[in-house]
């Protein structure tokens, strides 16, 4: 099972995502932003970081990277795609997911261990969880406030497309405490917190994040 991890100029958590894929039991494959090539991977992770320096708008330039043409096409074909943090921003900019991510309401970068509730355990990236599971994974962002119009928010909630919500304090002003969402088909997931930083007890607040990466393996087996 091959999971591609895209490196854009300014990607930072690509090595971490690769490690998470490995620990979940799959083979990580490095993908380069400038290539029109997904190298026969079965799923793709768009990692965190500051692609293209977050210039213009987070994710706005990455959307036009050659590799994204292939990612968008594959996603439309049903390939599982997970965007974490900057990856989530890129998915929104690419219109694979609705809404947008704006500057945190308190205007500061925030890094902390965040409690989340998994609301939708039926996506390609969350099937290892049960709906209602509470997990702790690191959160770190400067522009993590999820926003969308009321209609879209109602739609997301009505269709069960909110994948995860923030518990305790909302860390960034996200509307309706939304930490992650999915597309209608459930193969594309965008998540602001970082499950790849919670895959081993040694270097994070536990292993609660590993489920995102094991989920995609079982999704691919099916």
């Amino acid at each position: 099972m091959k999971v591609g991890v895209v490196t854009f100029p300014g990607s930072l958590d690509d090595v971490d995502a690769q490690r998470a894929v490995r620990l979940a039991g799959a083979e990580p494959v490095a993908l380069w932003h400038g290539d029109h090539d997904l190298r026969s991977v079965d799923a793709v992770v768009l990692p965190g970081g500051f692609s293209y320096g977050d210039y213009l708008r987070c994710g706005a330039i990455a959307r036009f990277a050659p590799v994204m043409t292939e990612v968008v096409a594959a996603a439309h074909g049903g390939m599982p795609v997970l965007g974490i943090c900057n990856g989530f921003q890129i998915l929104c900019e690419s219109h694979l997911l609705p809404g947008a991510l704006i500057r945190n309401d308190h205007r500061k970068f925030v890094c902390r261990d965040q409690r989340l509730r998994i609301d939708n355990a039926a996506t390609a990236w969350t099937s290892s969880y049960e709906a209602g599971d509470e997990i702790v994974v690191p959160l770190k962002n400067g522009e993590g406030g999820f926003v969308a119009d009321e209609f879209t928010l109602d739609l997301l909630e009505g269709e069960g497309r909110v994948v995860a919500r923030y518990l305790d304090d909302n860390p960034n002003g996200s509307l309706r405490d939304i930490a992650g969402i999915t597309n209608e088909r459930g193969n594309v997931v965008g998540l602001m917190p970082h499950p790849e930083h919670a895959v081993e007890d040694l270097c994070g607040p536990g292993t609660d994040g590993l489920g995102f990466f094991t989920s995609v393996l079982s999704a691919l087996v099916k």
Partner: protein
Amino acid sequence: MTDAPAATAPPAKFRLDTVEHADATPDHEQPWADLGLKADEYARIREILGRRPTGAELAMYSVMWSEHCSYKSSKVHLKKFGELPQETPLGKTLAGIGENAGVIDVGQGYAVTFKVESHNHPSYVEPYQGAATGVGGIVRDILAMGARPVAVMDPLRFGPLDAPDTKRVMPGIVAGVGGYGNCLGLPNIGGEVVFDETYLGNPLVNALCVGVLRHEQLHTAHASGEGNQVVLYGARTGGDGIGGVSVLASETFDAEGPAKRPSVQVGDPFMEKLLIECTLELFDAEVVAGIQDLGGAGLSCATSELASAGDGGMHVELDTVPLRDSTLSPEEILMSESQERMMAVVEPRHLDRFMEICAKWDVEATVVGEVTETGRLVIDWHGETVVDVPPRSVAHDGPTYERPYARPDWQDALQADTTASLARPASGDELRTTLLDVLSSPNQADKSWITDQYDRYVRGNTVLAQPEDAGVIRIDDDTNLGVAVSTDCNGRFAKLDPYAGAQLALAESYRNVGVSGGLPLAVTDCLNFGSPEDPAVMWQFERATAGLKDACAVLGIPVTGGNVSFYNQTGETAILPTPVVGVLGVVEDVTKRIKQGFRADGDVVLVLGTTRDELDGSAWSQVAHQHLGGVPPQVDLAAEKALADLMVEVAKQGLATAAHDLSDGGLAIALAEASIRNGVGARVAFEGAGLDRNVFEALFSESAARALVTVAASDLQGFTALAASYGVPVTRIGTTGGDALAVEGQFSIPVTELRDRWTATIPAVMGA
């Protein structure tokens, strides 16, 4: 400086001041004083060159001979670090003082490089960019050694938390450190935040970076091999930071003076991230013969240092340098401190590959010159020579000052003014209140308002980060080899006795590495002081360096690099002498690191080391009495070494469930922090524990060489026996558990109350 000629208009940009022109116009008046040079220094330049310098040469000498670059006031004292054996407990250092950063062997074929630097003055002028580019500069130093930067730490110091100017500088500095480091993908794993009124107007922004490399990847800054190409790559050169080193870092601030903002550089962390990845790929491709980062003094520094450290000369065509602003003069290009630039020496046969890799990372690279055998650094501007100097005279033969130093006349009175006469809390209620007051004071309070703005997780190798005693980074996923790093300094102790204060800074840092399970290997220091022109400050500096050197000799660890920052003072008032000491240790198996928080109910609580009546300079004396006087705690380096050696063995054997060094605020604060960490309290008693002379003293003394440790009851005997074999005294004081910190017969404080008081202080002033 009354004999300095008034600054006449410098040679007009459109009339080039060539070497030929300089030769022909010996009497041309030059603005050397405005550039920060003294009359005798200017005379020396003329003597070296046998003529007056050209404008471009003057620019180069002025920045390279500035205090910041030449260490002219500190060199005579720093020399003694070179007398230490360049050896760590694991063997010879791979690169030491004089390189961009020291490199030490940590085993398994890995080497580690680390260094701390200051960016104090720019951060006062422009907090965000000053702090950001401080991080950027130290990261490039580490990169230039051939290492992948893997972590940063930032010791910060501000004026009082509630001072209006602190509200101006602190949010900007913290955002700048975070904004740059986060964007580079470097975890920020520790540092310090200290508030003291002497830092008002003189905030200290020190930045430490750790890098990892394989032994064979070591690179150095030298240009040799005639015909090798000199490549400038990274960002374009602009007008930012011109004169930064000479104007900013080497003068005190004058409230009436003109705004100096244009002298502060502006950082672009995205470009730096590309520069890191690009440079590491260049190293992997083995196409780099020599490399130097461009930091303070920009091209002046890089060209002269590379050439000076090489075996020949260098010829540079300055007009080939890619510019952001096409109107820049040769002088300005040479002095610009535009960030995110590197200079490499490349053999012609590797040039194409070099350029390919730069293109892959969208990094602009330009051949700007080549290595020659002339022994001269020659710089041309559109075919005319504007610089022709012996490179060593610029880079290494700067002036050296034997600044006068003298023990200040107030030192005796300061030391005589001890805490003996200050009222001490006696009742349980008073002790309870005192503990909460000290715990919630700005210096002891929770710093997560600051550290939560830093990414501590990126790269996935962060084993420990703040508020743990030391930052611990895994460097090998398979073997679990890692390093532990801590930075510390108690400037109050250094004020009372700079010799002992510097030793205590080293001791604390060393201890923090040890209690985390790391074997201390090497030291980097950032020596922040007031004006070297004040004999009292110079005395503090001399004493601090002597103390540090002597202590390193006893502990058997070398100083591998560091930085000096002078002129941190406002008017006559200098900052507390602040020799920040970073210690790096190796952790053979990071899974065995020891954390500071109490873990479970029923563990035995122990104090290691000897507690004395040492309250002078303590956190208590500051919080309860706003007092600073007396003498700092006794330095016992043999005891520090025994403690660290013991803890390394304890970690290996897995005998401790938690460990926390005792320092600021003493046992009281350590107990509170260890309780807060995981919400597990403890019940302790001092009677019959050898600490019963005085509960206050047991709780608030800041005696050094001590640690708080918990062990499982079943391990107590083994632990005690091991400690005895290392000669470390062990005092059993109680048991972990419950939801309160209780001192028998005195007071009990719910852990939630401890946490509430501890976390409230900084957000109350800075906002949530």
